[in-house]
């Protein structure tokens, strides 16, 4: 039963991923990407990672996709701006390159001795003993804050730098100083007040 769920959502994952990269309108791509993330979280559940399944929906389906759709709405691109220069040669080269990569990965997986030995193991089978709770929130918390505390702190520094970088990149260049900017903002607000 669990394996069947994995197969179905795996096929749907590939279908939605193909649609994400082929749709002309990025809004459709964004919505299909949400579908893809939800299907991925289903597969996480099958592979005994309930906490990560929830985090997948919250962080990817919630935060990251809201960021994407927010930027899409902010830019408000016209169909002319969305139109990509049709270049069949580049598309063919991209298909050939990614096809070669897929073939190479499949060859690596099928020729790996370790993975071949794992063929008999059923990943949906029951687990007992000390590892039965692996993937639950308590276990992950203990692993994250005891054993892997240093990478965790480095990640927090990275996110801090990313926030500063995002603010620096999106600042408006037109005003040279803070005083001038304030005047402009006041100037922008005044007509609204007058209009009201």
């Amino acid at each position: 039963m669990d394996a069947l769920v994995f197969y179905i959502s795996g096929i749907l994952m590939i279908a939605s991923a193909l649609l994400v990269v082929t749709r002309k309108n990025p809004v459709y791509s964004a919505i299909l990407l949400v579908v893809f993330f939800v299907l991925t979280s289903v597969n996480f559940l099958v592979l005994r990672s309930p906490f990560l399944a929830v985090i997948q929906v919250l962080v990817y389906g919630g935060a990251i996709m809201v960021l994407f759709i927010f930027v899409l709405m902010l830019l408000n691109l016209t169909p002319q701006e969305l139109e990509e220069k049709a270049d069949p040669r580049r598309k063919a080269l991209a298909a050939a390159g990614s096809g070669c990569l897929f073939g190479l990965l499949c060859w690596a997986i099928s020729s790996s001795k370790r993975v071949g030995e794992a063929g008999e193991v059923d990943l949906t089978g029951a687990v007992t003993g000390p590892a039965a709770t692996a993937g639950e929130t308590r276990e992950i918390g203990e692993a994250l804050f005891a054993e892997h505390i240093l990478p965790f702190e480095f990640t927090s520094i990275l996110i801090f730098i990313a926030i500063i970088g995002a603010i620096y990149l999106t600042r408006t260049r037109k005003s040279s100083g803070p005083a001038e900017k304030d005047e402009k903002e006041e100037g922008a607000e005044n007509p609204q007040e007058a209009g009201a």
Partner: protein
Amino acid sequence: MTLSLELCLYLCAAVFSIGVYGVLSRQNIIVILMSLELMLNGVNLAIISFGRYFITESGATLSGVPPSTSQVFVIIVLAIAAAEAAVGLAILLAVYRRWRSTQVGDMRLLKG
């Protein structure tokens, strides 16, 4: 019906390759960033599959790895994906203000 590690890895390879195709074939930066997210998800699924495989039926772990290590890996990949999306979209906004375009073909300032 059983689920083998090999099949999970084929699925991850397929998703990763589709992401690579999107990055190479598309012109719109937003779709390229979405394809990057696809690639990161393929990798996450591979890490989770290996983590599940390393837990044997008796509850022990193969090669002595603690059972929740793969989950911690995925959490850190998630955090980095969020940071990457934030910086990528900030660059996109700056580029759109400068050139009024989101096509990578229009950005040829570094082209020799």
